[in-house]
């Protein structure tokens, strides 16, 4: 994101002296340019100019020769006397002794000295230190050490005033070198939202800074001198045969030649410095100027070696299989959608020069010997550039700007500005003819009609007509009176060329709101008409959650991503419906491309993780979503969003979505509590799994029926279906519970006999009656009767209980199984089930005869239903 050196910002605005980077960042943030980073002064402390008084070359054992130097660093910093044990070379006089390994300086040169206490870039603190047999009382600095980069002439090691980095500079010993070299520059890096492409330039940021603070602003584009030139420069043909979304890839192409530039000309120090501060590396005058103008105005430029380009230049789409070696030395295969700049070497449009707005190629690159250049300043379609940049993973400085939209008025201005700078610093002559193909992009849309009262309607502040008008004018809009007068009036607003994001009146309202200031918006809590509170399902989910927490379980979360292996680990049959998982196109991990179809698929690994982290037992639950694919062929249509889709379209959109539900699952295993002085701690087991399911059901007001079943991942003899009964009597399986299969227990490293449950929480909640009808509370005495029935081992207790209830009828207040007994007395393959039954009538005290009759009905019913015999 753009970096804004404050000294550069000050060129276009009247930045008050002494303004800090933090203050600038705060001001910019108020108008919507968020601070990303602040880069403070790169060097602090006593960095001063020094004069080399004497130097002695001292060869070392390691073959190197070092200089032992007496440097005059000004009266304020000099030591009057030498250290008698380590005298400096030459006549004793006020100075400092410094060791230096570079050899590009002589006695009498002015150099840059970092004295002890200086902190150089990279938090490099300078101190006096003993080296090569002397105490070096500071350091003579190179450009690299000061963060200025290598010497621009490529010759010097350390900086000598008047040359290289310090070209044109001079000073006296003791002068502050930080100011002299411009090392105190502070830089603010900002984040630019996609709608504000124009803020990818000093021009745009300076404008926003003036909006934020009210300081004067000069548009740098307005100060460029544009000579009246004739058309007829280098021939350019715009030939887009396959526009993306019906927009030509290149709407304007300006080409301007500059001939006779001195190939050896150097980039001026100030420009190189600014480029560095803005995060770009200085390369050569021509390249640096194009980058500088891009950073300043926002218009990307490209310079070609004019002697290498064969006219005409053709802007066209790539052909399949075409290749280009880009400036980063990578050969890329082009896509038919890539917009290319080509020339006519080997036929018209035959040679690829670059991907438009993204990156140039090697063939026509400016080189060390280039004297004649063609400057390209074009307007490319944002989407075309964005797609190419993404496709080739080339987020260049140019593409970043084109993607966000570049002011279509800029190409000619920027081309001349660059040409003028090149001529100013490198000589040569600007061609008298210019090429300006195409025109200013963008529909010449009608002005936006903005009722004067609209900003108030949306923002809630009574803006004056003057505030509305001046805000819009400040951002560069042309504001004219439309229909109506006064507060009823409507303005006709034409946004400036650099604001393609301003399309509807709400866009203008945002501009008014942010220029007047978001902080002026009052705080008014709206009064909603009154809602219906949480839905029954929402309340029920809370209750289920709370019930399991109260029962001793801890709620956890898990990611929904799974791999196919989990289905085998959980022993699903090949045709198990739960293998029908939704598959992701771009999963986060290649081995987990699916979305869980059962919560246990991700909860069991969480159980394993907890045990791995030192837990000795497990009691966890989760409320999460599970899904089942409707098949790979399922497609959700994507109609235009300009209006509400038709009901049929909407049904198609929603109907394609996978089946999804909120599921509740729990895993319990190991000791159900810590070891206790109260006696043995029962381990969690299969019965707990069913009990927890029933507790959850009870918490949401539903009732569960359990039936024996076999189902993965459970123990074949210790699993049950969980069923609910709808109001119409239909019974539906909504989940399962039981002890996990021993192989699953082993697979996940769980405590023996770990048990689990999983149920469709939405279905469970839906099964709960909305209203429970009251039951009578009779006060006649209760009669307690116990029964023990001997039945086959295979007869479920629930069936016996049901028979008892049916047999006794209304008199049965409660039926509760309290004992199960097997043994020799009962016989092989049999079991005895003992029930406590409470009988009560709503009408009268039960007589002995009534009780006896109830007993008989009970015994007969159990006999006929399950063949049970009353145990004698």
């Amino acid at each position, binding site marked *: 994101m753009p970096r804004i050196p404050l000294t550069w910002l000050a060129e276009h605005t009247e930045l008050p002296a002494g303004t800090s980077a933090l203050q600038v960042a705060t001001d910019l943030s108020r108008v919507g340019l968020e601070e990303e980073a602040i880069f403070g002064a790169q060097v602090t402390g006593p960095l001063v100019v020094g004069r080399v008084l004497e130097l002695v070359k001292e060869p070392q054992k390691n073959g190197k020769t070092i200089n032992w130097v007496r440097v005059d660093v000004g009266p304020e910093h000099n030591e009057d006397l030498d250290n008698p044990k380590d005298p400096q070379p030459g006549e004793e006089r006020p100075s400092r002794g410094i060791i230096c390994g570079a050899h590009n300086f002589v006695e009498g040169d002015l150099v840059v000295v970092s004295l002890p206490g200086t902190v150089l870039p990279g938090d490099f603190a300078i101190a006096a230190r003993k080296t090569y047999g002397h105490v070096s009382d500071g350091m003579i600095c190179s450009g690299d050490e000061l963060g200025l980069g290598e010497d621009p002439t490529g010759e010097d090691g350390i900086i000598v005033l008047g040359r290289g980095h310090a070209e044109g500079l001079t000073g006296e010993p003791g002068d502050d070198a930080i100011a002299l070299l411009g090392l105190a520059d502070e830089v603010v890096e900002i984040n630019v939202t996609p709608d504000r492409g124009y803020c990818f330039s000093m021009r745009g940021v300076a404008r926003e800074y003036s909006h934020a603070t009210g300081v004067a602003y000069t548009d740098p584009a307005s100060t460029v001198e544009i000579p009246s030139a004739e058309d007829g420069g280098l021939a350019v043909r715009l030939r887009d045969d396959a526009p993306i979304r019906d927009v030509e890839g290149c709407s304007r192409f300006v080409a301007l030649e500059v001939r006779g530039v001195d190939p050896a000309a150097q980039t001026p120090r100030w420009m190189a410095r600014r480029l560095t501060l803005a995060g770009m590396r200085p390369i050569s005058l021509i390249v640096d100027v194009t980058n500088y103008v891009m950073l300043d105005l926002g218009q990307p430029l490209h310079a070609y070696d004019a002697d290498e380009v064969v006219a005409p230049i053709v802007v066209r789409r790539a052909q399949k299989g075409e290749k280009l070696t880009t400036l980063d030395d990578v050969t890329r295969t082009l896509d038919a959608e890539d917009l290319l700049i080509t020339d006519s070497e080997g036929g018209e449009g035959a040679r690829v020069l670059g991907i438009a707005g993204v990156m140039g190629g090697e063939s026509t690159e400016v080189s060390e010997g280039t004297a004649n250049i063609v400057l390209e300043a074009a307007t490319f379609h944002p989407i075309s550039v964005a797609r190419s940049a993404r496709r080739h993973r080339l987020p260049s400085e140019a593409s970043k700007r084109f993607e966000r939209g570049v002011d279509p008025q800029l190409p000619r201005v920027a081309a001349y500005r660059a040409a003028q700078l090149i001529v100013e610093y490198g000589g040569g002559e600007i061609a008298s003819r210019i090429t300006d193909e195409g025109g200013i992009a963008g529909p010449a849309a009608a002005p936006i009609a903005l009722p004067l009262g609209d900003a108030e309607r949306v923002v809630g502040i009574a803006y004056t007509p003057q505030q509305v008008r001046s805000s819009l004018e400040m951002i560069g809009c042309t504001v004219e009176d439309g229909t109506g007068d006064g507060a009823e009036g409507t303005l006709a607003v034409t946004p400036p060329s650099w604001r393609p994001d301003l399309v509807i009146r709400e866009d203008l309202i945002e501009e008014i709101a942010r220029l007047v200031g978001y902080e002026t918006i009052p705080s008014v809590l709206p009064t909603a008409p009154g809602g219906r509170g949480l839905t029954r399902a929402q309340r029920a989910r809370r209750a289920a959650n709370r019930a399991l927490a109260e029962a001793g379980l801890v709620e956890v979360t898990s990611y929904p991503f799974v791999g196919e292996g989990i289905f085998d680990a959980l022993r699903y049959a090949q045709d198990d419906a739960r293998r029908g998982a939704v598959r992701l196109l771009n999963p986060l991990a290649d081995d987990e491309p699916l979305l869980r179809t059962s919560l246990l698929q991700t909860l069991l690994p969480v159980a394993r993780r907890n045990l791995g982290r030192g837990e000795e037992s497990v009691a966890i639950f989760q409320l999460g*979503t599970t899904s089942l694919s409707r098949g790979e062929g399922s497609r*959700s249509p994507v109609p235009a969003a300009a209006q509400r889709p038709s009901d049929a379209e909407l049904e198609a959109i929603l109907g394609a979505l996978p089946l999804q539900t909120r599921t509740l699952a729990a895993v319990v295993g190991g000791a159900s509590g810590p070891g206790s002085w109260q006696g043995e701690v029962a381990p969690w087991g299969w019965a707990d799994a069913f009990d927890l399911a029933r507790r959850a059901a009870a918490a949401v007001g539903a009732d569960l029926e359990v039936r024996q079943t076999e189902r993965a991942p459970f123990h074949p003899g210790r699993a049950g279906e969980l069923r609910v009964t709808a109001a119409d009597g239909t019974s539906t399986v909504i989940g399962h519970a039981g002890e996990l299969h021993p192989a699953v227990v082993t697979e996940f490293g769980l405590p023996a006999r770990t048990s689990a449950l999983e149920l469709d929480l939405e279905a469970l909640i839906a099964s709960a009656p909305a209203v429970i009808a009251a039951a009578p509370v009779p006060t006649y005495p209760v009669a307690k009767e116990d029964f023990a029935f001997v039945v086959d081992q295979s007869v479920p207790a629930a069936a016996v209980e049901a028979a008892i209830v049916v047999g006794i009828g209304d008199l049965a207040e409660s039926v509760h199984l309290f004992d199960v007994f097997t043994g020799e007395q009962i016989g092989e393959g049999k079991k005895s089930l003992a029930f406590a039954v409470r009988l009560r009538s709503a009408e009268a005290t039960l007589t002995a005869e009534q009780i006896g009759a109830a007993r008989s009905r009970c015994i007969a019913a159990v006999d006929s239903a399950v063949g049970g015999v009353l145990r004698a």
Partner: protein
Amino acid sequence: MSDTSPAPEAPSIDEAAITAAIDAALAAIAAAPDTAALKQVRIEHVGDASVLTSANRAIKDLPKDQKAAAGKLVGQGKGRVQKALAARQGELAAAEEEAALAAETVDVTLPTDLRPRGASHPLTVLQDRINDFFVGIGWEIAEGPEIESQWLNFDALNADPEHPSRSLQDTLYVAPEGSGMLLRTQTSPVQIRSMLERGAPLYVACPGTVYRADEIDATHSPMFTQVEGLAIDKGLTMANLVGTLDAFAAHIFGGAPITRLRPNHFPFTEPSAEMDFRCFSCGAREGLDHDADPNCRVCGGTGWIEMGGCGMVHPNVLRAAGVDPEEYQGFAFGLGIERILMLRNGVSDMRDIVEGDVRFSQHYGTEI
């Protein structure tokens, strides 16, 4: 019984003997160490064979003129003894009960955690709290599926077809390519669903799990929880947005709320803003004229906490959802619940929230 023991000789009531018997009885009562001994004392001193009882029996045989004095002497003496007995009985019984209870003393500091309570996940608890806030101001809680249509997640929300958030680097899509389905990246599709189903006016909060193609680290997770708010009505303004955010901030973080909006850009709102809450942790909470603690772990010394995006619902979004933007307008905002949890409760690592370690949940207990 008077005729069972014929008097062997003429009875006489010896005053001294009676007095001595009373004194002996009282002394024995006082000396009885426990209720069992006291029972024995009762038998010995006021039982059938006791001096006092014998004397009492003998009164009837006394000469008439002595009967009254003897009756009084014996009767009063026996009364004193009975009273002392009752008093001593009460004393001893109380002491004995006290001793018995003392013997039953238990160590009440013994642990009682046969089956300790579990815990809800703190995200659930916080989400409930947030939902309760919205219900409290008259809004409803709307929900939707996590596997969502591209149309609802992007197109209906005015996201340009080229918008970078649609890329495979940002969004997890359902296979195969072109399925038109994805893991929702925001709960905004629930806003659209609510508008499509209920129309305007509408005041809903939409909490839920969302997904992004992010690698997990201390501050990012590919799965996280959001709550978005949407209010559509006639005449709602940005001032109402600010008012709602202020009330929310006060409810969740406490204190006098200060919120700040900064201009920003989102496809689904216009005007758009980034919302900051004034730091609730350091000195900055005292007001705009108070500086933040430079080392504040919550705001990092800036005095502000970035909370999320918000703005006035874009007319294109209203149109796509079948609401007439000429008649209705409204605002929307989105907040990250993990972020609130991290700030509010000082969670330093996002992974703790999502990895399912029971110690993380247990620690919170039931924070109401």
